[in-house]
């Protein structure tokens, strides 16, 4: 009896999980399908799900009109660059806050988080002016710096929570054995925190890849990443849904593949603690 109830319960949960997953995934699936339709089919008021004339013409047009690889490369440099730079700053910062907290550590953490509460557009003009004067407008360097700063609070917070779960005694033991500060962080702390660091890294690559406010506003022609590539396919006059879908599919494909491959680490890092 109890066993059956569990079975039923399990089935219900599985069903629910699949339902929610499909619901969340549906827009992506629809974008994917639309990218293979003709423009006329894409705006048909009785949309067909699978039975339409599949065509590759949207991908052809998009590839003819824009330089996908250039945008792709910009996206890679910006997202990986800002994440690596962020980690270099955040690992020592999170270490100090987790293991040698001062009187103001909690306040600093809150203050860092509070910068995320400000709408980005509120600081657009000052940042734009700074970037202009530093000659960083429309450069990958400029975007790497800005995105590092934008995502730094999240990186520090994530690492801080992972580090907090590592028993300080282990680090103490390393110190007793004569480890210097750098080797303590590099050889003792980091290996233990690898799942945490990995998921932080992945999440930040995804966040930076998808970031559209700064990447659109601080670039023009040469540093524009895939967000700008997508934005160029929306049109006020004329049909564009199919081509826009093709551009979107091409833009999200790399990050989705990365997500699939690293699913295990991502879920583990996000749900489990650092030390198990």
């Amino acid at each position: 009896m109890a066993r059956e109830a569990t079975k039923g319960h399990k089935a219900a949960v599985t069903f629910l999980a699949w339902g929610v997953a499909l619901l969340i995934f549906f827009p992506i699936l629809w974008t994917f399908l639309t990218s293979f339709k003709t423009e006329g089919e894409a705006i048909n008021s009785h949309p067909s799900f699978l039975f339409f004339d599949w065509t590759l013409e949207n991908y052809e047009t998009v590839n003819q009109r824009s330089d996908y690889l250039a945008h792709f490369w910009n996206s890679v440099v910006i997202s990986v660059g800002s994440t690596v730079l962020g980690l270099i700053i955040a690992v020592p910062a999170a270490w100090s806050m987790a293991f040698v907290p001062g009187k103001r550590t909690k306040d600093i953490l809150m203050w860092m988080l509070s910068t995320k509460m400000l709408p980005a557009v509120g600081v657009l003009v000052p940042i734009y002016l700074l970037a202009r004067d530093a000659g960083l407008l429309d450069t990958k360097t400029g975007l790497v710096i800005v995105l590092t700063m934008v995502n730094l609070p999240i990186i520090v917070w994530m690492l801080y929570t992972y580090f907090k779960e590592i028993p300080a005694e282990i680090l103490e033991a390393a110190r007793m054995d004569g480890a210097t500060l750098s080797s303590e962080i590099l050889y003792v702390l980091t290996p233990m925190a690898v799942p945490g660091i990995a998921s932080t890294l992945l999440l930040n690559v995804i966040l930076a890849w998808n970031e559209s406010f700064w990447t659109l506003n601080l670039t023009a022609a040469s540093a524009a990443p895939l967000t700008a590539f997508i934005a160029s396919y929306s049109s006020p006059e004329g049909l564009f849904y199919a081509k826009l879908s093709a551009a979107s599919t091409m833009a999200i494909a790399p990050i989705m593949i990365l997500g699939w491959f690293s699913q295990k680490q991502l879920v583990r890092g996000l749900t489990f603690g650092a030390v198990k």
Partner: protein
Amino acid sequence: MTMTLRALAGASLTVALMGTASAQTTITVATVNNGDMIRMQRLTPEFNALHPDIKVNWVTLEENVLRQRVTTDIASKGGQYDVLTIGNYEVPIWAKQGWLMPLENLGADYDQADLLPQVAQGLTVDGKLHAVPFYAESSMLMYRTDLLEKAGLKMPENPDWDFITDAAAKMTDKGAGIYGICLRGKAGWGENMAFLTSMNNSMGGAWFDMEWKPEFTGPEWKKTLDTYLKLMKEYGPPGSSSNGFNENLALFQTGKCGMWIDATVAASFISDPKESQVADKVGFAPSPVRKGGSNHGNWLWSWNLAIPATTSKAEAAKTFVAWATSPAYAKLVAEKDGIANVPPGTRTSLYKNPEYVKVAPFAEMTLTAIEAANTQKPSEKAVPYTGGQFVAIPEFQAIGTAVGQQFSAALAGSATADQALAAAQALTTREMTRAGYPKK
């Protein structure tokens, strides 16, 4: 090994030096993703053949993103762009701020006098052009000749709103999925408000009186909104409060609309048999007037190329702008893609070309509509502003969109017409007071 490395390094150094030796001027052109602009982008190699020393970089963005992006850059003197694609709403406002370079001496072959006067006028500030038109459009009525005939009606030379209502009722056949009329319902100063402001002008109304007091509580706006809501609710397609230009275009092309009042540029899309299922059954007429009225309230919109005052490559930018809007460019498009694809609405010569008139059945009506648009006096009433489907003040974008949301809500049924008008009056009064109107 070392030898190879050295050779490689030497080679790459040479390549790098060669690169700098033949340095070009690189200009960045910001534009929107409309068919005519994409064609211009595709024809860039032709420009390069004439001007090998100028390299053109393209930045294509969604209209609103482009507006925000370009405004930030110009206001903060970022200098990221050398050529901008902007509307005739922005040109006078930006020119007065000193953001745009006046355009003079565009070359011997430019033939500035050939530009349509109504269009050129909207881009002229202090007697100087501050942008040149790439293409322009007005508004007109597009209808299905077969459905009108079936309804037993004949399109008058100057249809009025009563005729439109009657025709919409007779053409509607909801069972067959045919709706008498499709109009813009999506909220936005350039979406439903472009149409409704024009319609209100044709009803004899205005946005503001001479004291800059909004007129939404007046009889004209009431008549406008009531007529619009009746048309849309009784004879319009379902879900029309989210329909903009593109959605209505799709509906019309698939035979779902009897009539559609919108931008003249739509005419070429709905008469193109490759895109439209009703290409051989479309007719064109002027925008409706009120009974006995003569103001069609035609709007006038042009997409223009301008050069920001912040550019450091003004000469190269001017060369490009002159090329893209010249008679020679029109000729180039005609040769490459056919004369029907020449950007419309900017040059008198195009409409005098018998070849064009032959392939574009909508040419005459388009020209009539543009010529009938009066941006200097959009309303029959005395008003303190210029414009047409918009009021040419910087505050209009925000106010127009907020009012558009009220009217869109009335169409969706979440507010009554009177509530929407009262809300529009209140919010416009508030915003205008805040902006310091009436300005002395």
